[in-house]
């Protein structure tokens, strides 16, 4: 009987830091090839359609940017949360509230036009997302309520609230009774970057800016240091005089605002009106993006693009080869599994040992706390 044993490296391995994403991707490809073969499809052909075709056409690159923008925006905010050991998994709800708050302007004041409209909407969207994120933060700091669950439950509430709004008070009176608000006027629509080439809008630029700013914050400023210290060891942080409650609020408000910005950018840029459903689960997928990018804002940009590619590729194989859309989900799950597994190699060496050898005496040493993100 053999078993795995982890041996902690004295310091993180630079080699595996660089290699692990590639190993993970390679493993995903191998597992994917088996999956495609089982489905009776030529794996090479499937991979060509899945991974190459979507990035070989200009319009698809634009679509990639549209799909990746909200994922990156949300995930960048979440990375700060997770580094601070604050578990916001309700970004989907904050995204929706951002969309609602921002849309209030064009829906309630359809006659209001001009260059001021869009900045105001974006601001409102950020405020909406942040305000909604403040609820779990408040409950956590005030009552110690588990934020994983409250933030998640609030997602459902947000979905029902949006549903009620677009079917009730905000419904387009000329819309034949269908659940949609009016179409936003032109000055409330987020412009496209290169209208002749494709649909990508300014949302993608916001995502890139947010990633760079948060990266600077985390790596260059004291605040980032505070986040990391409090995240890895709350006690050490307290000794250093950092406030735990303030940190919870900071993380939630920042990630809520970014999710809200993503929400209003999506509604104003890609949809142009409010609908009962404005997100195909971006808030949840972004959690995966955050971890795929190893909670590093710049890594998240790459991860967001890769994940967007799995969606586009999933659609491509679906229409070209008739493969079920579930394949894309399985791919995402496998990719994340392999990335998480391979990242273990950065901190540990893996040894295969026989059972008999492991019965050595245990040493009394503090277990390394890995909860802190790598």
């Amino acid at each position, binding site marked *: 009987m053999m078993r795995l044993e*982890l041996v902690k490296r004295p310091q993180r391995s630079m080699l595996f830091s660089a290699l692990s994403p590639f190993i993970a991707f390679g493993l995903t490809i191998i597992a994917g090839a088996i999956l495609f073969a089982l489905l009776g499809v030529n794996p090479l052909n499937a991979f060509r359609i899945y991974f190459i075709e979507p990035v070989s056409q200009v319009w698809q690159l634009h679509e990639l940017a549209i799909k990746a923008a909200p994922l990156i925006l949300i995930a960048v905010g979440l990375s700060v949360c997770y580094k601070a050991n604050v578990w916001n998994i309700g970004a989907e709800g904050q995204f929706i509230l951002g969309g609602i708050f921002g849309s209030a302007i064009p829906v309630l004041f359809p006659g209001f036009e001009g260059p001021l409209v869009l900045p105001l909407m974006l601001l409102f969207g950020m405020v909406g997302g942040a305000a909604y994120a403040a609820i779990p933060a408040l409950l956590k700091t005030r009552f110690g309520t588990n934020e994983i*669950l*409250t933030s998640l439950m609030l997602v459902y509430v947000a979905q029902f609230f949006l549903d009620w709004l677009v079917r009730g008070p905000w419904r387009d009176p000329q819309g034949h009774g269908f659940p949609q608000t009016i179409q936003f006027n032109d000055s409330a629509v987020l412009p496209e970057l290169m209208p002749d080439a494709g649909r990508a809008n300014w949302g993608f630029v916001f995502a890139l800016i947010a990633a760079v700013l948060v990266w600077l914050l985390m790596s260059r400023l004291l605040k980032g240091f505070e986040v990391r210290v409090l995240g890895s060891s709350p006690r050490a942080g307290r000794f250093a005089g950092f406030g735990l409650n303030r940190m919870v609020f900071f993380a939630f408000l920042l990630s809520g605002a970014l999710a809200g910005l993503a929400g209003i950018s999506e509604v104003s840029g890609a949809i142009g009106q409010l609908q009962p459903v404005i997100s195909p689960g971006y808030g949840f997928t972004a959690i995966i993006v955050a971890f795929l990018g190893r909670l590093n804002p710049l890594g998240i940009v790459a991860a967001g693009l890769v994940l967007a590619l799995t969606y586009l590729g999933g659609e491509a194989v679906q229409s070209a080869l008739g493969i079920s859309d579930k394949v894309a989900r399985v791919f995402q*799950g496998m990719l994340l599994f392999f990335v998480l597994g391979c990242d273990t190699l950065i901190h540990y060496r893996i040894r295969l040992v026989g059972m008999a050898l492991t019965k050595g005496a*245990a*040493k009394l040493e503090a277990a390394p706390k890995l*909860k802190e993100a790598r």
Partner: protein
Amino acid sequence: MDITVNILLTIATAATPLLIAAIGELVVERSGVLNLGVEGMMIMGAVAGFGAGYLTGSPWIGLLAAIAMGAVFSLLFAVMTLSLATNQVATGLSLTLLGLGLSGMMGTGFVGQPGEKLPNLYIPVLTEIPVVGKLLFGQDPIFYISIALTAAVMWFLFKTRTGLTLRSIGDSHTSAHALGIKVIRYRYLAVMFGGACAGLAGGHLSLVYTPQWVENMSAGRGWIALALVVFASWRPWRVLAGAYIFGAVWIGQLHAQAFGIPVPSQLLSSLPYLATIVVLVLISRNKRLTMMNTPASLGQPFVPDR
């Protein structure tokens, strides 16, 4: 009288899968592991249960398949988080993602097929006692399993030596390890028990609740189960109470609508979630109580040094 009995029976059916999945997760969390993949394990259990029942014609085989599938699927999580020390939150989320995708692929051939339903218990004379007969002796077999399971877990955690060991691992894996306890082995077993429970809960969905297979049929129940564990501050009997309170709110909002109460249905539909938040707050306000029961090393990976 009949209507009350019927409503209670409906609540029991709605509460049973939540209870089972939550009890399983409770044991996992008591051992110090946080598995957010309950939804994924549940849906895998549902598809395996339906499939095995449909193919063999025996819902009992379906039930066993659901349990086995849940346990096997949770092994994936165990290898990742316990042997490779990966982040538990992220691993659990990817388990859910993978489960939703895989179950959809596996279930393609089962769509639109009527499945096998586990028969309700029937004991001559006893089941026919007015009012209590149906409640006590006329429900589906998994209902009885869920109650027995709760009692068994209560006894196991607080009355047995192994249960004490498990709890001590959850409170401090380093000290448990120092005492020579095989932390990882215990946790493997706990995670697989949780998986088996989630699988059984999924089996309840596709073999009792709505005997059919459809994609995403777990519809978020795995997440509710997770909330129930915290709600119960890691106490089995409170999980039972929580599952039934949630079931009652869930069924109650439908009755309120059928009764014609003029409140937007969206508000009624969000009641169960709002209620969960309120109760979570009420529970966590009592800090001493929560601290006492929370497994201190919950969610932290453990790598034995040697």
